């Protein structure tokens, strides 16, 4: 088991290195930071631009290999270079990562848990009222883009607030600007703001998971081993829970971790609409600013989250399906 995980971990480290390097090289060769400085008002002298670019390790006159090595050297000491405005990428990244992770961790857990529970139950009640309504809701949600859901929820929040007469639901920002108080008040304030965007992400995830889990569950419902479990003397409910669901969860685990990884960038719209300054929003903005180091850093972070998620899935997988351990 330990050997199996260690081998996987080594694989992941190599993959992260490759993914980040490619992202850097792609950004460094295709973005044009020189243009960013040249269009400044008043236009700086070419020498000044070069000096700026050299200071940031962004000069396209320096060979790409040299820039890459300088950047790579920094990475190993935890230095992700400077943003195009001269700020420290690493410190900003950790701040934004916190915002994104907070949002998507809760949303993924909530959405997948609901989806799995409802999907599995719908499978047991196949073609009954519960299954039919769960299917209808999931397909409806799946057919509406997340952007639309995000905006609709926001509009609804506004009308609910109007009806209530005070601001019952918060739909903008991560916390109330200038709010101060005890730590628990701060925490409460943040939770309050997180409600709606988390809901939006969770709903979209729930739909996908419910469909997926339903199919997985249907596959094992008629399985011989469920019948064997019942023949031993387990009630139908217990046989389904202990023998069928556990087996049906195995493929879902893989799906779960990859959605988590994909959400790091996939939550961009929700972040933008709800005024959260997370990773996704940062990536989009930095591409517009020709900010090579930020693009590379965000890619690095995404690679890390996806690989961490895969690693988690390996552990969960090994826990659910002990056969991979031997």
């Amino acid at each position: 088991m330990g050997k199996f995980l260690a081998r996987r971990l080594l694989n992941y480290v190599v993959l992260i290195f490759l993914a980040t390097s490619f992202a850097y090289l792609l950004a460094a060769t295709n973005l044009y930071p020189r243009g960013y400085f040249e269009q400044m008002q008043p236009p700086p002298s070419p020498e000044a631009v070069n000096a700026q670019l050299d200071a940031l390790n962004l000069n396209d006159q320096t060979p790409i290999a040299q820039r890459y090595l300088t950047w790579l050297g920094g990475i190993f000491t935890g230095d992700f270079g400077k943003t195009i405005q001269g700020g420290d990428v690493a410190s900003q990244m950790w701040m934004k990562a916190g915002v994104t992770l907070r949002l998507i961790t809760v949303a993924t857990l909530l959405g997948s848990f609901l989806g799995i529970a409802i999907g599995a139950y719908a499978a047991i009640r196949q073609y009954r009222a519960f299954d039919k309504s769960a299917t209808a809701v999931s397909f409806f949600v799946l057919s509406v883009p997340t952007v639309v859901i995000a905006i609709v929820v926001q509009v609804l929040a506004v009308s609910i607030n109007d009806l209530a007469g005070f601001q019952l639901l918060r739909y903008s920002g991560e916390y109330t600007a200038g709010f101060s108080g005890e730590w628990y008040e701060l925490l409460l304030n943040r939770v309050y703001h997180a409600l709606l965007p988390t809901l939006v992400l969770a709903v979209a995830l729930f739909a996908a998971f419910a469909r997926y889990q339903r199919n997985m569950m249907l596959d094992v419902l008629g399985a011989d081993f469920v019948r064997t479990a019942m023949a031993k003397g387990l009630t139908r409910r217990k046989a389904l829970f202990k023998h069928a669901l556990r087996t049906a969860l195995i493929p879902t685990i893989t799906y779960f971790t990859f959605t988590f990884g994909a959400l790091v960038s996939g939550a961009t719209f929700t972040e933008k609409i709800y005024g959260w300054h997370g990773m996704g929003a940062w990536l989009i903005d930095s591409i517009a600013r020709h900010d090579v180091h930020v693009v590379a850093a965000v890619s690095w972070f995404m690679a890390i989250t996806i690989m961490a998620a895969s690693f988690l899935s390996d552990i969960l997988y090994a826990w659910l399906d002990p056969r991979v351990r031997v």
Partner: protein
Amino acid sequence: MSIDTAEATENTTDEPTSEVPVLEVTDLNVTFQGLGGNPDVHAVRGVSYAVHRGEVLGIVGESGSGKSVSSMAAMGLLPDHAVITGSVRLHGEEILGKKDKEMARKRGKVISMVFQDPLSGLTPVYTVGDQLAEAVLVHDPKAGKDKARARAIELLSLVGIPRPEERYRSFPHEFSGGMRQRVMIAMAMANDPDVIICDEPTTALDVTIQAQILDLLRTAQRETGAAIVMITHDLGVVAGFVDRLLVMYAGRPVEIGDVDEIYYKSRMPYTMGLLGAVPRMDQERQGALVPIKGNPPSLSALPPGCPFAPRCPIAQPECELAEPELLTIGGQPSAERIRELAVAHEDASAGAREKDPEERIHDTGVRRAACIRSGEIDTNDWTARDIYPVPEIPEVEASSQAREDRAEMLRVDDLIKHHPLMKGAVFKRRVGTVYAVDGVGFDIREGETLALVGESGCGKSSTLMEIMGLEKPQRGTIEVMGKSTATLGKRDRFALRRDMQIVFQDPMSSLDPRMPVFDIIAEPLRAHDVPAAEVVERVYELIRLVGLNTEHATRFPSEFSGGQRQRIGIARALALEPKLLVLDEPVSALDVSIQAGVVNLLEELQAKLGLAYLFVAHDLSVVRHIADRVAVMYLGKIVEIGDTTSIYTRPAHPYTQALLSAIPIPDPEKERARTHIVLDGDLPSPANPPSGCRFRTRCQKFITLSESEQERCVSNEPTIQPTNGGDQGTACHYAERLTVS
């Protein structure tokens, strides 16, 4: 290594049956309601039986006869949408209609079940031991984990799993099929139940493993004193195992009685046909098998009268008026009475058909048959051959010639097929070799049938695929019609395929479901550029040849039954007029009554067209019936080869002896008198075969030898040596002709 003597079960029914039966099923009906406008499926209709303590009841029937569904209903394992009526009593207590929670307390404790497919019957993600312990714990939660664990280990050793302490922690995929079935039996025995229902417990297993499992079931019965309900389609398995027998057809019980009565004096045409349709391993010249024409009716659209009437050779107009009840022989109403009743019934409202519980037919242990002519059959003492038209199959013309003078169709010499075992994702390295086929040699002459037999994993299919590939083999030679495949060019190879065609095992998946029958049969003709006008003529000729109607040509494979599809497969194989037909388990997926028709067809075609067959099968009874010569394979090698009569009557290799001895014969008296040689353990892995003689690890002869004699088996690999003067050859250092009963 041991030779277990399987004692025939004592007949325990002679005690009075006045005590309350352990399990009594009365007038059980199961209907699956059709969803979305589909008609309801009447899976079980009016099944009644009773089993007493220590008694073994057999339920036989073909697929779809409702034998499994009726037992699942008794266990409360059917899904919610099944409508079940009638009565199921366990020790006199009605259990039908009980809540799942109450039923769960009975399941596994009072009544338990062994299922057909051991490969999928165990949950893959729990260890074998934990699943066994769960069976103990669920009925006795206070026992505690340690006690349950100890009991599980005890059970594992009871069912003959070696090193049970270690094996407790194994997962199901680490066990072979036979071992998994042992675990399933252990699970069923866990709480000393009063009834064990065995649903085709050996169908998915090889014969030598089947013998082990049947032995084990006898032990289980002895240990627990339980009543056993044995459900199977194999008339051999039940013959020596059960006391009483219930025959089912189209969801209906059609005959019930003592096993001897049913086997020797069957009074229901269906049972008679079924028994006549079984090829017999113990009879030399059986003649053509008794085919039952037609197919079982659909359970959602049953004929009004006796469901067997459309296939019955002695059906009368009265048979189609009303379904005959299961009554004592001669107790059936007369033809006139049936006509009167039918008229009266038309007047009565449909609701009046509901029987009142007093009128229900209980199983009282008396022999009954559901045929209005059962009395007549009894008085005249008719047998299957009297009532069924048996086809005349002419002798093969070439058989008058000496074997050596006939042309050679196929010669295989020292053929090997080794698969490398690779490991590693990026840097692949060879870590071993699977010796799938390891030096096989035989020849087939014109008009002759050679059967390649052996258990799964012995390499018979690999041999077949190597031959069909017509490529240069890894070692050895394959010569088809005198042409070596090693020297064939692309064109020659294509041309040679005309002469050699194949019929596959599974008629369901070997025909393209999107092609009409005409195109399926015409495809090989078109591939070989036969002119279009000839194609049409030839296809219709072939359709008639295999016993189908020409109007079938435009239909799709899904509209046909298994037997008909196999006929289509045979027609396709015959399209190019091959001289050699390779048959890969052509009848193993078919029911007995259908199988007989296909076997007869194959024999008839051979006689008519002078075909040579290479017949691959695991069913030794069919092989005895159809083959002229037999080659027995074990772990990639032929261990014995020779003419069928010699091999079956005087086998010389210990493996052949064990194999023949393991097959149950559909004859209760003979079967009870037999002593089976039961081999220990499973087939060794072909990646790591034993040194010297490959069979020595399981050989029943090896252990009787002195140490110096054994040395020869361990270090020297035996080659095939002529054993019997004649055609027989055996690869055993200590070959000795033996008559196996």
